[in-house]
């Protein structure tokens, strides 16, 4: 069929996807196996304070003499699960409300979409800050704040998908065959709606990690001494001339956000070739 020679190897495995997968797998391993990957404890003061990187301490030590490399690895244990939980919850809430909105239309649609509009009219960071501040510091509260900020994105996407799919002829054929409305939504509309929503969710994992770190940076997420990337950068910001204190968590955030974006992009290209 192909008229042009294809590059060798599976087509879906492009360079960015490979890099993205490697990075994400690395951080997944760190989440699971952090104690095995380093000989220090993240809370222990293991050396003199503010030591530059060396063979004993790959990324140096922070203001309290704790190993930055160790703390960065352990940081994945906070950031990754939070990101996954926030995205899953937002996706569930958003997709459910969006599907209802698009399928039922009318009053329900209006009510849900106005709620979405209101939520999206705030800068996400500001709203998350306000909610998190209201609930008090702590990663759990930060997660709730982020779900509140994030679900409308999926609600909109899902609604748009449902609106498009519900007009397709096979849905009309299902109505003509006597299928009930819940059945039509669940079996004939929703299975065709997931692709863009899931792709967007993959990309959002990185964004949520960033937002969680931002909240922690200003003291609304994880509280010290938790080894969380945002709060570590915040500590590092106080030690301006010891660049390595903020470098570890900063590089962690940079790579994992990039990794998720690469994967999301690759998924996007794979499932929606039109938009290439």
């Amino acid at each position: 069929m192909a008229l042009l020679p294809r590059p060798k190897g599976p087509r879906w495995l492009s360079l960015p996807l490979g890099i993205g997968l490697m990075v994400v797998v690395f951080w997944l391993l760190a989440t699971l196996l952090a104690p095995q990957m380093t000989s220090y404890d993240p809370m222990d003061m293991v050396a003199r304070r503010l030591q530059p990187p060396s063979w004993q301490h790959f990324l140096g030590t922070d203001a309290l003499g704790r190993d930055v490399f160790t703390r960065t690895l352990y940081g994945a244990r906070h950031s990754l699960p939070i990101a996954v939980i926030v995205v899953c919850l937002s996706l569930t809430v958003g997709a459910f409300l969006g599907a209802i909105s698009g399928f039922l239309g009318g009053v329900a649609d209006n009510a849900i979409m106005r709620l979405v509009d209101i939520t999206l009219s705030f800068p996400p960071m500001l709203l998350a800050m306000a909610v998190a501040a209201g609930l008090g510091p702590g990663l759990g509260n930060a997660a709730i704040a982020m779900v509140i900020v994030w679900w409308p994105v999926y609600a909109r996407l899902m609604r748009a998908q449902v609106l498009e799919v519900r007009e397709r002829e096979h849905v009309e054929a299902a109505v003509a065959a006597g299928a009930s409305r819940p059945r039509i939504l669940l079996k004939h509309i929703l299975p065709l709606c997931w692709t863009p929503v899931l792709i967007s969710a993959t990309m959002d994992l990185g964004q949520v990690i960033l937002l969680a770190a931002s909240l922690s940076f200003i003291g609304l997420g994880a509280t010290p001494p938790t080894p969380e990337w945002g709060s570590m950068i915040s500590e590092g910001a106080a030690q301006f001339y010891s660049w390595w204190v903020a470098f570890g968590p900063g590089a962690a955030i940079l790579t994992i956000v990039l990794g998720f974006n690469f994967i999301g992009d690759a998924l996007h290209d794979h499932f929606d070739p039109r938009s290439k």
Partner: protein
Amino acid sequence: MNHTETGVPLFEVKDLRVSFGRSETQLEAVRGISLTVNNGEVLGIVGESGSGKSIGMLAALGLQPETATVSGSVRFKGKELVGLSRRELRKLRGSRVAMIFQDPLSSLNPVMTIGAQITEALQLHNDQLSNKAALERAEELLKLVAIPQPDRRLSQYPHEFSGGMRQRVMIAMAVANDPDLLIADEPTTALDVTVQAQIMEVLADLQERLNLGLILITHDLGVLAGHADRVAVVYAGQIVEQASIDDLFAAPSHPYTRGLIASIPDMTADRERLFSIEGMPPALGRLPVGCAFHPRCPMCQEVCRTTAPLFRGNQKHEAACHFAELAEGGR
């Protein structure tokens, strides 16, 4: 025709009207259609695109878009369908009355196997049917519409089927619950000509075997020849002529019908140009006064511009034209 036994026709539409929009700017797409279909009878409905033939039949089953208003009466075995609850209509659709759509390429759910879709159609109207029995019946149905290797085909997805095969599947699903009435909305329009003939054969064969009442909606008079018992010609939301297929071809009474018949390409005639009816069908909001067809009619007289014609002729052959009798003479 066993309606004579009960006195009730299988499907009876009286003065069906479908309109869109609110009172002041209301546009009528269907302006009072009346027709009957008896058991085992094939009624063809012919008309141009946008003449209201499809929307009329959809509305008869309560499948009109939410923005549409429907009035008039539709009776199925004596039971009034207009205004029936969604629940009641749902019970009827797909079991007693089935429908086939124009585009088989998009009428099947792309993410469900053919088997799953047919068994769904079966189980929607029969809770007790086990999965195994439903699959067996599905295989039987594929055999009925002459799909080779039905057992293997059941586990395939729609994209593995050609257009003609998909329309066969649609037909199989439509007759799955042994309906009394089948409405086929341009079943062959999206297919190429050779496949069209095969699909029409499958439909005709099933119609005869299952003694179905069949409404065949099409814009192609040629499709109806040899298949329909009676034909209703629709123009601008109204039936302009209704007759048996033979009478219609032998003595078309309405100038529009004659135009349609003349438009069928004739391979034996040595003509440079194909015949076509002058002008365009009227837009919904700008229907002409008097006979809706008069701006395009070759026989238009003064009366046509002022007065809408009533039906003339008898039960067997009627036409809504002021000059129906005159027209009957020559072609």
